[in-house]
C-alpha cells in the first residue's frame, strides 16, 4: 500500500516538477530574451541620440540653442542674426582642412 502510495505520488509529482522546471526555465529564458531586447533597444536609442546630437553640433543647431538659452531669447530672425554675428567672430576664424 505504501509502495502504491509512493508510486502514485511519484506519478503525480514527476510531471509537476518537470513542468515547474520547464516553466521556470522558460520564464528565465523569456526574461533574458526580453532583457536582451531591452538592452538592444536602449543601445539603438542611445546611438541614435548621440548621432542626432553630433549632427546638431556639426550643423550648429545646438550652438544656436545654447545661444538662445544664454541670451535668454526666443528663436526669431533677430536672434538668429545675432547668433550668426557671434558665430562669425568665433567659428569662421577656424581652419578648414585640405
Amino acid at each position, binding site marked *: 500500500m505504501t509502495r502504491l502510495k509512493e508510486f502514485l505520488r511519484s506519478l503525480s509529482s514527476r510531471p509537476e516538477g518537470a513542468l515547474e522546471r520547464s516553466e521556470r526555465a522558460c520564464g528565465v529564458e523569456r526574461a533574458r530574451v526580453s532583457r536582451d531586447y531591452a538592452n538592444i533597444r536602449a543601445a539603438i536609442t542611445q546611438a541614435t541620440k548621440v548621432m542626432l546630437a553630433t549632427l546638431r553640433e556639426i550643423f550648429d*543647431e545646438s550652438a544656436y540653442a545654447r545661444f538662445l538659452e544664454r541670451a535668454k531669447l526666443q528663436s526669431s530672425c533677430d536672434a538668429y542674426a545675432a547668433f550668426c554675428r557671434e558665430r*562669425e*567672430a568665433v567659428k569662421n576664424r577656424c*581652419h578648414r582642412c*585640405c
Partner: protein
Amino acid sequence: MKRTLSLLLWGIIVLLTAAAVAVIAVRRGEPINALWLVAAATCCYALGYRFYSGFIAAKILALDPLRATPAERLENGRDFLVTNKWVVFGHHFAAIAGPGPLVGPVLAMQYGYLPGTLWILGGAVFAGCVQDFVILLFSVRRDGKSLTEMAKQEIGRVGGFVAYGAVIAIIVILLAVVALIVVNALRDSPWASFTIAMTIPIALLMGLYLRRIRPGKVMEVSVLGFILVLAAIWGGQWVSLTPTLAHIFTLQGTTLSLLIILYGFAASALPVWLLLAPRDYLSTFVKLGTIALLAVGIVALHPTLHMPALTRFSDGTGPVFAGKIFPFAFITIACGAISGFHSLISSGTTPKLIARETETRMVGYGAMMCESAVAVMAIIAACVLQPGVYFSINSPAGIIGQTAAAATTTISGWGFPVTASQMQALAHAVGEQTLFNRTGGAPAFAVGMAHIFSQTLGGERVMALWYHFAVMFEALFILSILDAGTRVARFMLQDALGHISKPLGRTSWYPSILFTSAVIVAAWGYFLWQGIKDPLGGINSLWPLFGIANQLLAAVALCVATTIIIKLHRTRYAAVTLVPLVWLVAVTFTASWDKIFDANPRIGFLSQARTLAAGPATATTAHLIFNNRLDAAITGILVAMVTLVLIESLRQWLGILTGREAATLKEAPFVMTRMAEEQA
C-alpha cells in the same frame, strides 16, 4: 578566461593583418579584390588604436581623467563647452575630412596601389594619428592654444613666426590647387558647370530661408538644399542636351578660373550668413552622406582592382606628375597618412570641447584613422578603373598628345591598353564630351565612384547621374574650402596688418575687408592662373608644392610635440614623434631639392625655366619662366623657414638634455575636475 579570449582575438587580428598585407604586397600579375585593402586597413587601425595609441596614452602622455580640461574650466557656452566624446569625434572628423584624402591618393595611383596603400596605413598609424593625438592633448593642457601659439611658447619666437608663415603659404597654395581641381573637373562640361553654378542660388536661398523663414533650422534646410542640388544634377542632363544652353555652360579653363576668382572674392567679402554658412552646411551634409555611401558601396560590390601593384612609373617618369616614389608618393598623399593641416584643427576648435583628457585618444587618434580609411576608399575608387582609362583621364595633353588617337597610342605603348572608342563610350556613359586630359584627380575619382555606385544601385543607365553627383560632391566642398580658406587667410592678414595700421586690423571695417580679400584672392588666383596656363597641366607643379608645404607644417607640429615630450622628461619615448619628424624632414627636404634643382625639366622648376629660356620664345615664355622661378623661390623659403624651426628645436632639446636649460612647460596649472566629484 577573459584574458585568453582577448589574446586569441588579437592574435587572429594580427594573423589577418599579416595575411592581408602580404596579399597586397606580394601578389603580382593578377588583380586583387578591394576587400583585401579593406581588411588590411581595418586590422592595422584596430592594432594601432588598441596597442600603439594605448602605449602613447599610458607611457608618454599619462592621460589624467582627473585633470579638468579647458572645456570645463573655461566653459562659456560659446567656444569652450564640455561635449559628449562621440559628438566631438564627429565634429573633429567633419573638420579634418576634406578633398585631400580623396585627390592625393588618386594622383599617387600612377605608381600602382602598393606604395600608396602602405604609406597610408603605416603613415596613419605611426605618424598622422600620433601627430593629431599629441597636438590635441598638448593644446588641451594649454587652454586650447593654437599650434602657432604653442610653437612660440615652447620652441621660441622663430617657431611661432614660421608656423604662422607656413599656415598662410599653405592656405594660399591649397586654395590654388583645389580651385585648379574644380576648374579641371568643370572644363568643357556643361552638365557639371550648370550643376555647380546652381549651388550658388541654392546656397543663397538656404541663407535667406535660415535667416528669415525658419531661423536656425539648419538640418531641415540642408535636406531641402540637398533635394534642390539633386534636382540641379537632374536638370544638368537636360542642359547638356539643349544646344543653346549647353553652349552657354561649356566653359574653357581660363573663363572658369576668372569666374572662380570672382566668386572667391565675393564669398569672402559678403556677409557670412548669405553664402558661406549655407554652402558649408550643405557641403558637410553631402560629404558625410557620400563618404558613408561609398563605404557601403565598396563593401557591397567588393570590386576587383585593375591597377597593378606597381607600375613602370616608379622610376619617376609618370605622366600624372613627375618624380620617383621616394619622395613624391609621400608628399602627394598627405591627408590620408599625415597632414600638417590637421594640427591646426587639433589645436583649434576641438580642444575646447573635450570633456576629459582620456577622450583625446579616441578623438585625435581615432578620427585620423577614419580619415585614413577615406583615403583607402579613394585608392579603391581609382584602382577599379582600367589603368589605360586612369592614365587617359589623368595625363595632361602635353605628355600624351592632343588627339584621342595620339593619347591612346601613347598610353597603350606604356603597356596599359586603351582605345579611343572605349574612352568615347565611357565619356558618353557619364554624360561628358570627352574624358581625356581631365587632370587633377577629381574626374578620375568621380568615374571610379560612379562605377561603384552604379554597379551597386541603378546599373549602367544611371552612371551619368552618379558621375555628376560625384563631381558635384567634390566641387561643392572644394568651393566651401575656397570660401572659408579665403576668409581665414583674410583674418590672419588683417591680424598681421593690425600691427602696422589699426584700421586695417579691424575685421568689420569694409575697406579693410575689401583690400585684404583682394590680396588673398589675388595670391591664390595667381597660382591658379599659373596652373591653367602650365603646359604640363598645373597639377605637376602645384600639387607637389602643396604637399611640401603641408608636410613641412607637419614637421613644425612634430617639432613642437617632441620638444614638449622632452620637457616632460619622457626623452626615452621621444622616438614616437622624432621618427616621423626625421622621416618627414627627409621626404620634404629631398622633394624640395628635387623640385628646385633636378635636371629633369618635368621635375625641377629651375631646369624647366632654363629649358623654356633655351627653346623658341612665345608670348607666354617669359611668364612661364618667371612662374617656375617663383615656385622654386617659394619652395626654398618654406624649407629655409622649417630649417630655422629645426635648429631652434634642436638647440632647445640639447639645452634641456645637457642641463643648460630648464625644462619649463607652459601648461595650464592642474585643477581637479568637478565631474569626478559629481560622479562620486
